[in-house]
């Protein structure tokens, strides 16, 4: 069995993807599994068609990598791959749609509204912003409805900053998710497996100097991580239960990372789903794996072998 890792792509998160791909390759090769990294380009489809005894691991972050597109391509050519299927990925990629789905399954998530840029033009930005501030209390999280790595994300603590946050968000996409910011403990729970066999790894607690933005995520120093998170038994159970509920309800497969805020009442409020979580030196999934006592390469090997056998 060989592994082809797809990394790079054309999204805003290309740089993160390349670094993730490189690290996964190194871990697999340390385990004696031949792995190569390939970008998504015009040479890809002929290569996929020619593959034998190969499983693909899509590690493209952002659009095309996490929105189901690359998964659909792999399904079209019947190539086994690690990760969530295309239809489930497409639902998970659009944050407001994902929130609606898992909220219906009883998972808590902060209140939100989704608004396209066109609405601000048609109705008038001033009126829409006023309506947002009437409905929600500060602080608010403004984020692209489709995206990752905190690109285009702003924490709004003052009314005067809301307009700027919307502009920043719309630079990355035409649909904004406006979400009530919840104070609490930020925890990322990684899940492995599928359906009833899925299991949650220990949560990783994120304590950040300032906003948990792109710089904080990918440059060591500003964030202090606790893996496992400093939670009591009830809290640990709450976050794990929420993560598993999301993973199963959304039909996610093999691996995912569910981000949440544990609020002051001990309720896990899910804020984001990642079906191709980052695997860089500062990423949360590898930290969770190490906290669980697994070896990273060993888990990666299990993932590729499991996908290959499907």
């Amino acid at each position, binding site marked *: 069995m060989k592994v082809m890792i797809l990394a*790079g792509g*054309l*999204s*805003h*998160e*290309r*740089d*993160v993807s*390349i670094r993730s791909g490189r690290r996964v390759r190194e871990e697999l090769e340390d385990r004696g599994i031949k792995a190569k990294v390939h970008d998504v*380009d015009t040479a890809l489809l002929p290569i996929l068609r020619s593959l034998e005894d190969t499983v693909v691991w899509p590690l493209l972050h952002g659009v095309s990598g996490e929105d189901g597109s690359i998964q659909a391509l792999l399904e079209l050519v019947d190539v086994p791959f690690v990760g969530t299927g295309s239809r489930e990925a497409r639902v998970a990629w659009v944050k407001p749609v994902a929130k609606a789905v898992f909220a219906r399954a009883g998972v808590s998530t902060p209140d939100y509204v989704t608004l396209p*840029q066109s609405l*601000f*033009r048609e109705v008038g*930005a001033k009126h829409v912003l006023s309506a947002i501030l009437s409905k929600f209390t500060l602080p608010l999280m403004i984020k692209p409805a489709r995206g990752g*790595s905190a*690109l*285009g994300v702003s924490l709004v603590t003052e009314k005067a900053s809301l*307009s*700027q946050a*919307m*502009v*920043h968000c*719309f*630079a*990355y996409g035409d649909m904004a998710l406006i979400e009530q910011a919840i104070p609490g403990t930020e925890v990322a729970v990684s899940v492995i497996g599928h359906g009833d066999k899925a299991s949650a790894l220990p949560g990783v*607690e994120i*304590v950040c100097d300032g906003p948990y*933005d*792109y*710089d904080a995520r*990918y*440059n*060591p*120093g*500003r*964030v*202090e*991580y*606790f*893996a496992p998170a*400093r939670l009591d038994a009830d809290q640990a159970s709450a976050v794990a239960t929420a993560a598993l509920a999301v993973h199963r309800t959304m039909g996610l497969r093999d691996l995912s990372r569910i981000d949440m805020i544990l609020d002051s009442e001990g309720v896990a409020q899910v804020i984001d789903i990642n079906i191709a979580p980052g695997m860089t*030196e*500062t990423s949360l999934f590898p*930290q969770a794996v*190490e906290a669980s006592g697994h070896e990273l390469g060993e888990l990666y090997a299990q993932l590729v072998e499991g996908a290959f056998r499907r």
Partner: protein
Amino acid sequence: MTHSDTGGTRLDPWLGSYAARAHNMRSSEIRALFAVASRPEVVSLAGGMPFIGGLPLEEIGEMMRRLVVEQGEVALQYGSGQGYEPLREQITQVMALEGIHAHPDDVVVTTGSQQALDLVTKIFIDPGDVILAEAPSYVGALGVFRAHEADVVHVAMDEDGLVPEALESTLTEVVTSGRRVKFLYTVPNFHNPGGVTLSLERRPRILEICRRFGVLVLEDNPYGLLGFDAEPLPALRSMDEEGVIYLGSFSKTFAPGFRVGWALAPHAVREKLVLASEAAVLCPSNASQMAISSYLEHHDWQGQIKKFREQYRERRDAMISALEEFMPEASWNVPDGGFYVWVTLPDGLDAKSMLPRAVTARVAYVPGTAFYFDGSGASHMRLSYCYPTPERIKEGVRRLAGVMDAEMETIRIFGSGAHEPSSTVEFPSPDVT
């Protein structure tokens, strides 16, 4: 993973050990966006990469083969810390084209002129010292100055380059405030990123002002031979041997991959530069230097520069024509040489904020904020025409116009005050300097 007393980890066991100057060294999402610029689908108007395809690569390949076969034991060995003597002699002949008369002993060969810039800064700058630089200034220089904890004060330019009156008033202001100005950093020809050239009339005036204030001039001149029409203007160094340190490079007139540049400095400065260079790299690459020396000796390098000029002129024309067609609301200079057009966006637009949208539209540029020490300059962008074909340049500007239109739409919706000036200073990667 090293854990702190709290039980957590910041994923960096050396966090408490860095020098204070290193704490500001950060990648940013803007820098990460440039990772996309290398993809063929993206028209990159960002990088200052010379058009290597214009070189006679087969001949150069044969030249290098012969170099290794016939002189490999020297070429592949350590060499002189000051640089390969025959090349230093040839460098004086290159500089003579811009009026500089120099002795090979005053030339220090470096690993790119970027290293020369770093060495000069290292030997002159203490933390807090002031460096004057044009507004805007070369991003690679700003990075060096920042790394050495200098304070950069910008001096205004116009279509004729650095403004002497602005230089004088800035010097007066800084000196009066009790701070020490160590040198003026200037790119006098086909400025990166401004595209302008310091006029002949202003050159002696700039030198006189600096002399009067006791300020050294650091003249960085990678583009001086790449003017499209006129003969090269006399270098500042040709007018003042003791007050100017001259930096030269083969990156644009030949190829950057060899990493060969040089500093021409007064005797006492040169001695310190050699010591500093030896401490940094032991010696510049013998192989690269001997390759360039062979190229200068056996090939029509001046004819090649003429070819480059025509290739870059064609590209410049394509860019200006495309700007006129697709972006008439913006304004720009028309450079007479070099690689860059400096664009001023319509009111309210922010080149840095626009970059994610540009990446989605598959076009890249460098926001003006990269070229100011304090991160201002958001209403500008640098467009490079040196590398893409004229057709790609036109397509890139067309895509950029679409980005600008979308951004203007956002401004219309949310108002021009919705862009907050960024205080984050960017460190663009080398391929966009």
